[in-house]
């Protein structure tokens, strides 16, 4: 039974990478740390359980990354995906600090691997965790245990008492029992609110019922809402989220990475009304996969169907569930519950608009359509080689952008712009400071590691003074 009577130096809310990096950094600096994870042990770690890599700046080849990836290129990538909706100073600080993130994680026992396969070729920009995010979490939790950090599972922090910019105590539910935790400094690393369907409904109405939550069901945004209601400054568009094209048949929660479908650039995509609605071949998939969730979320019924043929089916990773398969487009339409004549016409119109080119699956090629609206700019080949394949799509939400505002020391900012006396934040709960929209693969873990370390350092320093 944990000791709820003592005053801990640092309370860390959350149990993902950002929380663990903060807890480990604070404990290494000599602070006594208590960490509250809402989930039971096998599902610990928030969305970090589903991650695989982090994006790190590096001036030359490392053991796990090829070539170099410098600040300007990294910043340029970030600026483009966010369309400028970011905080340049904070972003550049994070990019520079990312160089040291792999070494820090390795010091906690995390093992990295060279990237071997898969369609997202990221070995130049991203360091891959051997075994993925859960293996990373196992190592971090082991390091926490080694450092004597009190780790509570099945413990939801429900409310933080904030008085004039100071957090004083936390109201928690520990294994179903109400408790209080007193502390000198707080690190909020409890993620976004994407698993809170009622909250999503406030912005999206009934459509929210059709969103699949890709990650942890424990991301309820309880502390995010709690802090914002107590004078903490808000940043990020509350209506926006990062979402990908998921298999429509996936579990509504926690389906993770394996539910995403990479077939879009090699298919045509129609909505429920059997109409194409966006250029499927706009750019390479690693740069475009993050927009398709939102595109589908804006379609009627929040569903879509990707149609392709046997010529293209080996160009993308296999799906978990078998695709619809038929010898005719009408057969596909029947399985998808669509009007056969309409789907046949969409495919025929598309086929007629395809101009010949040289197909190169990994780089933008000259296979495109002419006179078609919307166009397909690359990888457009006639869909005429049976059997035909189709995949039903739904938006799969990764995380929400609404965040608490922080400064470059991970201190939480109050509504008046002044930093809180003893509150820090790291991870998805503050992602909106840098990600105003869009996403860069592996940036979430970078954000968590960099700001987790800053938050832990700041919290420990505050306690020492």
């Amino acid at each position, binding site marked *: 039974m944990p000791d709820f009577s003592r005053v801990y130096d640092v309370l860390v809310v959350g149990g993902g990478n950002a929380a663990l990096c903060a807890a480990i950094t604070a404990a290494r600096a000599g602070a006594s740390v208590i960490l509250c994870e809402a989930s039971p042990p096998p*599902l610990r770690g928030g969305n970090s359980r589903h991650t695989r890599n982090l994006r790190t700046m590096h001036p030359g080849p490392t053991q796990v990354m090829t070539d170099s990836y410098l600040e300007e290129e990294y910043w340029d990538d970030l600026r483009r995906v966010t369309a400028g909706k970011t905080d340049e100073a904070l972003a550049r600080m994070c990019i520079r600090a990312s160089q040291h993130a792999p070494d820090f994680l390795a010091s906690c026992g995390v093992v990295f691997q060279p990237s071997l396969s898969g369609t997202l070729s990221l070995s130049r920009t991203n360091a891959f965790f051997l*075994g993925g995010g859960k293996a990373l979490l196992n190592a971090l939790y082991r390091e926490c245990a080694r450092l004597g950090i009190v780790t509570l599972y099945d413990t939801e922090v429900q409310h933080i008492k904030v008085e004039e910019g100071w957090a004083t105590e936390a109201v928690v539910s520990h294994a179903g029992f109400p408790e209080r935790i007193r502390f000198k400094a707080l690190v909020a690393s409890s993620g976004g609110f994407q698993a809170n369907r009622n909250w999503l409904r406030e912005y999206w109405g009934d459509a929210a019922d059709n969103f699949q939550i890709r990650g942890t069901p424990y991301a309820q945004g309880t502390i995010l809402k709690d802090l914002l209601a107590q004078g903490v400054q808000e940043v990020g568009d509350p209506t926006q989220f990062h979402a990908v094209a998921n298999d429509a048949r996936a579990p509504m929660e926690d389906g993770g990475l394996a539910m995403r479908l990479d077939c879009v650039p090699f298919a045509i995509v129609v909505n429920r009304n059997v109409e194409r609605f966006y250029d499927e071949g706009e750019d390479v998939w690693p740069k475009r996969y993050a927009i398709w969730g939102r595109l589908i979320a804006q379609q009627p019924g929040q569903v879509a169907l990707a149609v392709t043929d046997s010529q293209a089916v080996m160009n993308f990773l296999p799906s978990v569930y078998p695709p619809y398969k038929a010898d005719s487009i009408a057969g596909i339409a029947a399985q998808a519950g669509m009007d056969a004549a309409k789907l046949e016409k969409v495919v025929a119109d598309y086929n007629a608009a395809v101009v010949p080119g040289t197909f190169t699956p990994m780089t933008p090629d000259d296979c495109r359509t002419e006179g078609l609206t919307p166009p397909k700019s690359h990888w457009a080949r006639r869909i005429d080689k049976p059997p035909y394949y189709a995949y039903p799509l739904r938006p799969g939400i990764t995380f929400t952008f609404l965040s608490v505002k922080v400064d470059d020391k991970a201190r939480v900012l109050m509504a008046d712009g002044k930093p809180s006396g003893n509150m820090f934040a790291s991870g998805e709960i503050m992602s909106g400071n840098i990600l105003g929209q869009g996403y860069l693969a592996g940036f979430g873990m970078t954000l968590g590691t960099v700001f987790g370390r800053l938050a832990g350092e700041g919290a420990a320093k505050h306690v020492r003074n």
Partner: protein
Amino acid sequence: MSATEMNKLDALLREATVTESDAYQEARRQMAVCNACRYCEGYCAVFPAMAMRREFETADLTHLANLCHGCKGCYHACQYAPPHAFGINIPATFATIRQESYAQYAWPPAMGRAFEKNGTIVAGVATLFVTLALLLAVALVDPSKLWTAQTGTGAFFRIIPLWLINALAGASFGFAILAMAMGAIRYWRGTGGLGGPLTPAPAAEAAVDVLTLRNLGGGGHGCNDVDDSFAQQRRWLHQAMFYGFMLCFAATTTGAIYHHVFGWKSPHAFFSLPVQLGTWGGVLLCIGTAGLMRVKVITDPVPVARKLMGGEYAMLGLLFLIGSTGLLLLAVRHTGAMGFMLALHFGLVLSFFAVLPYSKMVHGVYRGIALLRNARERRAG
């Protein structure tokens, strides 16, 4: 209907009625998730081999299951491990398939049933053989020889005649080799046959994999022997057991060569080659088997096929007893306890030969073939 048509119809009917076991269906479901995830590609040979496939026929699953060394790295790293709805547990599922494949490819085929209650069978045969060896020694050996110190050339053979040792051990071991060779051929055919010319390079690669247990290295830093921490315990303990076993085998072989080629009769001096090989082999065999049993007892039970543990404990126990009675025989060989200890040791060794093709020991044959097939596939791209 002609005879050929009847045969065809028969074949079709047989095919239609052969249904896959739950383990195979479960493995196919799990592979669909794994092949879309691929986070484990850095761990062992199974995942790159999986990534080369899109469809998983029965033969593919048998091959992948036998390629799996049961290191449990993929289970502890799995975002979909129980209690997640997908409940991915490759080590336990593949262990079950391995056992089913041992039964399926056993020779003669009827003996496949011996894998069902393998722990009971292995332990039962060992008990029976030891009992018989002791009873027969008491009944047939002159008590004045059995219970007194025997010295000088041929000491052992005054207890059990050499011709009898040769006949029993030779026949049982010879049959075991034949049965396992037949099993190997049946397995090779059943998991895809030759598929291209045999070249030395993949065979060399597979041999290195076997001799170094590379796939129990977990990509360099070890396996999840006990829990989500990494260690190389199982690898080193298995190496101790394997090389200990091989040293014992070498001791017996050198002993035979000494006897039949050079005419040097046992017992040999402690520092002679056969005794040294046997001694260190016995020590390693005891350390390896005892250590592996300990790991089995303390390991996280979820990624383990509990149904199969009986057969594994029985074989480890038998090997431990063979090693330890061999060492005891060495210790007491100049005393009156030698006769008793020799009968005990010989009974255990004979029971090992008898169960060999129908025990956990066959995993070496199928694992070796799976590694060879994998090395060939990798080269073929």
